[in-house]
């Protein structure tokens, strides 16, 4: 039998190769995809998140952990889909129009994916109508917006306003982030939540879709 306690160690050390081999071995032995994810992988990612918030690990380590998680999930996700298991939520994420800074957005996307979300990454410089299309076409129930510059922050509001105009605001939750973004700003523009870090974003996303 594959020793799945090694999965935690492999994830926490960002060892994508070992995560992949453990995943393949466990699946071959008949471990169910959902058990593998929910009992062995998501808890490890949550542990990484706690270590990150406690300044025991830092952004590079978190990126590597999220990458390792993603490597395992790439194998597992098609199996989960076959079994009819629904993701925790479907999130469309992107940097707003005019903003090309995606380091934080990519980290949040990876962490959300590791946290059980289906992530539709719309990339950078995303115009409001692309978010609207994702809601209609991909059954998205959460939108995550990032702006790194005060110059592009107004486009966060533009997306929320576009959702209202299209009559879609009630169908989705909106979470926002980025260096100059604050909780005050989130309140002002009517976002449902704000997080100042990637781990907090996962907890926030789970609360918003619960």
């Amino acid at each position, binding site marked *: 039998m594959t020793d799945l306690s090694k999965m935690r160690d492999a994830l926490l050390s960002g060892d994508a190769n070992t995560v992949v081999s453990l995943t393949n071995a466990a699946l071959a032995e008949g471990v169910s995809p959902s058990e593998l994810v929910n009992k062995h992988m998501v808890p490890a990612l949550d542990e990484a998140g706690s270590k990150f918030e406690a300044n025991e690990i830092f952004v590079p380590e978190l990126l590597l952990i999220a990458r390792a998680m993603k490597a395992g999930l790439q194998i597992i996700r098609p199996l989960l889909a076959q079994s009819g298991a629904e993701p925790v939520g479907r999130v469309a994420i992107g940097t707003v129009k005019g903003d090309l800074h995606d380091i934080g957005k990519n980290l949040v996307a990876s962490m959300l994916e590791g946290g059980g979300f289906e992530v539709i990454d719309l990339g950078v410089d995303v115009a409001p109508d692309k978010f609207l299309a994702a809601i209609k076409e991909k059954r998205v129930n959460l939108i995550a917006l990032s702006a790194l510059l005060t110059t592009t922050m107004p486009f966060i509001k533009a997306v929320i306003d576009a959702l209202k105009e299209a009559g879609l605001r009630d169908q989705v939750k909106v979470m926002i982030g980025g260096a100059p973004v*604050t909780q005050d700003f989130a309140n002002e523009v009517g976002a449902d939540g704000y997080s100042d870090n990637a781990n907090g974003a996962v907890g926030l996303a789970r609360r918003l879709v619960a």
Partner: protein
Amino acid sequence: MPVFPLAGKRLKLISCEIFHREMCAAVAQAARPVDIEFLPKGLHDIGQQAMVQRLQEAVDRVNADRYDTILLGYALCNNGICGLTARSLPIVIPRAHDCITLFLGSHARYLDYFNDHPGTYFLTTGWLERGGDLGELQQLSIPHQMGMDLSFDELVARYGEDNARYLYDQLCDTLRNYGRYAWIEMGVEPDGSFENHARQAAADRGWSFEKIHGDMSLIRRLIDGPWNEREFLLLPPGQHVAPSHNDSLIRAEP
């Protein structure tokens, strides 16, 4: 000792050194005497609280007996001026997102250019001669704390080659989505050497290059006035700067 009519109170300019040549040029021709304190470029990299603390210390150093108004050579700078408090002297602050507004002469002109050309990295004399090295701020900078300033070799030593390549792409190549250098000529350059450096930088990265004519008028109005409410916040004594999240960008808060 004769008393000269112009020897009254002075203006104090506290400015980011990114404006060094422009501020010196404007102050040289100023209507009133202006003393300048330049602070190091890169305060916006050390986080909002640390930045505003440095600015507040500079404001608090100003001798109120010698000056009647403080001029701030800063923009909103990613909220880095938020919380700055005027003590006994008023502070005049340009309504601008960042230094590029001051180089281009107006908020509207900057936004037009920005919206038409996302992914532009702007260069001026200040950015070319003072933009690279953060000096003592390096260790304090957010990019440093996040591991974003590590070289590829340092990443390999810490995380192994495969991980290093991934981290370098994901974390350290912060300009990977940029594609254009815009050289802003302000009229303070000694010769064509700065422009040549800017052109070379674009060629080295394979980016497009555009030369833009800067506009000293907003910087001159900061130094000389009039400080109209549309372009400047006049922060009264006892109040502090807050973001307004609208076109006015900043407001005074008691």
